[in-house]
């Protein structure tokens, strides 16, 4: 899965669910967008769901948002899709997510730590 190349089915999503790009490259407007992207791909690689589950969910999310004139951005819709799918697949509950968000908000208040991952300058070998 994590063979060192992008998954075509993800990269080649078409039409309204196409990934935002500039000159062919992915564009993340904010760090959280990249995290949300990575999360969705990671869970798929872990076998938590098929990519089509996610892409179909995203298509529905976008269609609903557009039909109701919701001005949300691509990755806001992406995140909403991911949260719904995580809950639908029983990986987490709504309550757990809310509780964790509250906890994180509290932590953010104490430390100004926007990047929870540890810095590592070098590449690791094979991943699972």
């Amino acid at each position, binding site marked *: 899965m994590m063979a060192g190349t992008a998954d075509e089915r993800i990269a080649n999503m078409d039409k309204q669910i196409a990934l935002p790009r500039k000159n*062919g*490259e*992915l564009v993340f407007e*904010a*760090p959280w967008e990249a995290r949300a992207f990575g999360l969705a791909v*990671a869970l798929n690689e872990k076998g938590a769901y098929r990519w089509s589950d996610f892409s179909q969910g995203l298509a529905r999310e976008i269609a609903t948002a557009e039909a109701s004139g919701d001005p949300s951005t691509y990755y806001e819709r992406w995140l909403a899709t991911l949260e719904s799918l995580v809950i639908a697949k029983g990986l987490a509950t709504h309550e757990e997510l809310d509780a964790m*968000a509250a906890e*994180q908000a509290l932590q953010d208040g104490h430390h100004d730590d926007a990047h929870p*991952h540890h810095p590592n300058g070098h590449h690791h070998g094979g991943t699972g």
Partner: protein
Amino acid sequence: MTQEQHGSDHVQAEIDVALRTKALEALLVEKGLITTDVIDEIVRLYERDIGPLNGAKVVAKAWTNTDYKRRLLENGTAAVAELGFTGSQGAEMVVLENTPTVHNVVVCTLCSCYPWPVLGLPPTWYKSFAYRSRVVREPRVVLREFGLALPESVEVRVWDSNSEVRYMVLPERPAGTEHLGEAELIPLVTRDAMIGVANAQAPQTLPGGE
């Protein structure tokens, strides 16, 4: 750079989605479903892999280094690997040089073979039946539709990729870029130029501040 002046509602919404993303990640990490390292790795991989940046680096190096250019045209696979770009599933990489008299354009008439390690992922049109069939039959017409009008004196060569050979075009270095270094040349090299449906951009046509 986030220089726009957002309204405070928008700022709050941004904080909320950032927080929700963080919470989701933290929860899934806590449950042992994922690790932050894996997400880092995926983001890095897709940012690098999806775009044509690798190919642009190859082209800019070839424009500024005649030895590298010679190696690139002689053995594309090896020269591209020199920059660390490998992994096209055993396919040979052949680089085609555009000159004032020859213009190369790449297609895969059978499916969508594409030099992934250097160009990332193919654009949708590259995989379309219309492009695959028409660029062989009427390349000049197709190129004109892409906005590239070539004089009759320029010979157009169409290269059909397959599972053994992947082609990439080395576009001509734009005029007026003699003073630019490798790093400044990279942004001039577009994906379309390396497929051969466009020329490299002239420096002044680059999107500026927008």
